[in-house]
């Protein structure tokens, strides 16, 4: 038994999907890390340009109509997207994990009340709730987007963690710990939660992808950071007007970047699930 369970990492590396995901995520991390080497600043304008210029010359991916270098903004955008994705997932975990854990472990009335709240939040289509929260925060910043995306993710996290906790709490060693007279807090933190880490990790990885997608959507709707910020959703919002014009290629790079990043995290997450839980389909 130990032999088969000992190698989640090896299983991950043998998984084709996970490998592709790992490569894609690695690529995005490289982009983010290399942003300092970008030929232009994120808000720097090429004064010789006043309408989108096709790729070539000193603009590897061309410019937009403002005179910004698309390639450089794409690199800086990787930073913002990674940060948005990770920060909102961390935020959602910080709130959702305790909620789910308490709900699952305590059971009874606490569980009922908490899960009803979760039900109510899940009754909203996610974008609808996110829009309302972003409008409530009323500041066009990356922070607004992070909070909005995190809030929307909390119920999903809580529900998932609760399910895992329910599964674990029936296991022998938990019963044993209880019999030994440990306090519920101690059991929850020392015995139960560590055993839920695997599903939480899967959830978190998939969550980064979802968060990046949702954040880009909010930016596109105009509820994200202001237009000078090099964020992919913002770039697409700005590029929207070129979709029907002659300079259609302006909209391609940010969209591909988002798709690659989200795909990467999704594949990695699915791979992790398979690696950590061999019984999963």
């Amino acid at each position, binding site marked *: 038994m130990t032999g088969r369970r000992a190698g989640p990492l090896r299983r991950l590396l043998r998984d084709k999907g996970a490998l592709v995901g790992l490569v894609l995520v690695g690529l995005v991390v490289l982009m983010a890390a290399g942003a300092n080497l970008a030929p232009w600043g994120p808000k720097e304008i090429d004064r010789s340009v006043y309408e989108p210029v096709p790729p070539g010359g000193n603009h590897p991916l061309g410019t937009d109509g403002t005179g910004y270098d698309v390639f450089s903004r794409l690199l800086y955008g990787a930073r913002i997207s990674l940060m948005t994705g990770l920060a909102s997932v961390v935020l959602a975990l910080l709130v959702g994990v305790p909620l789910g854990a308490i709900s699952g472990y305590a059971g009874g009335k606490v569980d009922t009340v908490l899960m009803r709240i979760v039900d109510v939040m899940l009754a909203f289509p996610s974008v*609808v709730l996110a829009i309302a929260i972003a409008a409530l925060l009323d500041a066009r910043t990356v922070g607004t987007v992070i909070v909005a995306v995190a809030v929307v993710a909390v119920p999903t996290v809580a529900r998932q963690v609760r399910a895992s906790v329910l599964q674990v709490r029936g296991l022998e060693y938990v019963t044993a710990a209880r019999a030994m007279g440990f306090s519920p807090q101690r059991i929850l933190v020392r015995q139960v939660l560590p055993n839920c880490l695997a599903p939480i990790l899967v959830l978190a990885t998939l969550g980064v992808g979802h968060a990046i997608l949702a954040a880009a959507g909010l930016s596109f709707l105009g509820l994200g950071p202001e237009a000078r910020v090099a964020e992919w959703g913002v770039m697409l919002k700005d590029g929207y007007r070129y979709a029907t014009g002659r300079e*259609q290629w302006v909209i391609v790079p940010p969209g591909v970047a988002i798709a690659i990043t*989200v795909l990467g995290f999704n594949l990695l997450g699915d791979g992790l699930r398979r690696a950590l839980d061999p019984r999963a389909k």
Partner: protein
Amino acid sequence: MLVYTIRRLLFAVPLLLAASFLVFAIVTSFPGDPCREKLGQATTPEALAKCRKDLNLDGPFLERFGTFLGGAVKLDFGHDLRTDEDVGDVVLRRLPPTIELAVVALGIAFLLGSWLGTRSALRPGTWLDMVGQIVSSLGVSIPVFWLGMMLIAVFGVWLDWLPFGGWSSVDVAPGTTFHTDFLLFESLVRLKGAAFLGALKHIALPALALSTIPLATITRMTRSAVLEELGRDYVTTARAKGLPERRVIGRHVRRNALIPVVTITGLQLGTLLSGAVLTETVFSWPGMGTYMVNAADQRNYPVLMACMLLFVVIFVVVNLVVDLLYHWIDPRLRTGLSS
């Protein structure tokens, strides 16, 4: 079954109540005073007081919530802060385009997804299976608004095959008078060929873009459901009895596998509505999504409340119906496996 139905219905009521409370709480805690914004600086205290009353801004929170709820039940959400239109009227006008878009997208996703999923399951490892897997991975990774823009760029502008904006009777079928705002459904029911074709052309690109979201899940679910059915005893028995393979698949496997797929299709509505908000924005679709986004941008309180509430109601009701249908179709579940 009856007991289950009643129980589900009883559960939906407090859920909707709580959700409308959340809607009201969020929107009324927006910063700023809508009356000051509406009336401007040079206003009288009387006008301000009247506006506050009209907008239901005075009195204790719970009382105001009661007023809001009482109005909402009658579809009375007050007046648009910018245009003074009756929000209830506008919502009724804006709902049909969203419904048509969602239904067509779901239809495309279901047909394509169940076909692709079945094919992949029957011949695992072939190129078609690969296509299926790629579709189900990409479908949840590509931003739907970007896909919409690309569709516009390629099919709308480059190839110039399809229109990509405009969904009014004039855009769709000049010269035709419509009695409802369901341009597609109405022209179909009234058998107006040209109008139906026009509507179909106009809805094609947005529906295609939106369909990718449920398409991914439906393909994936169909594949695993069909695989599961194929492993069941009756398939082996049927095959052993010498039934033609087409009949085994068509009559039995596909039919049984479709039950969970139909359910999943129904439950995709939440993500579908989310996607619809983005898709509508890309295609300037005159539906609930664009109405809500504009309202959020302008902090147009009555409109935002109405839109959010309506989205929730649609979401909850459809989920409820799907759930009930599922239980009705699949007797195994009537005993209450999921409570």
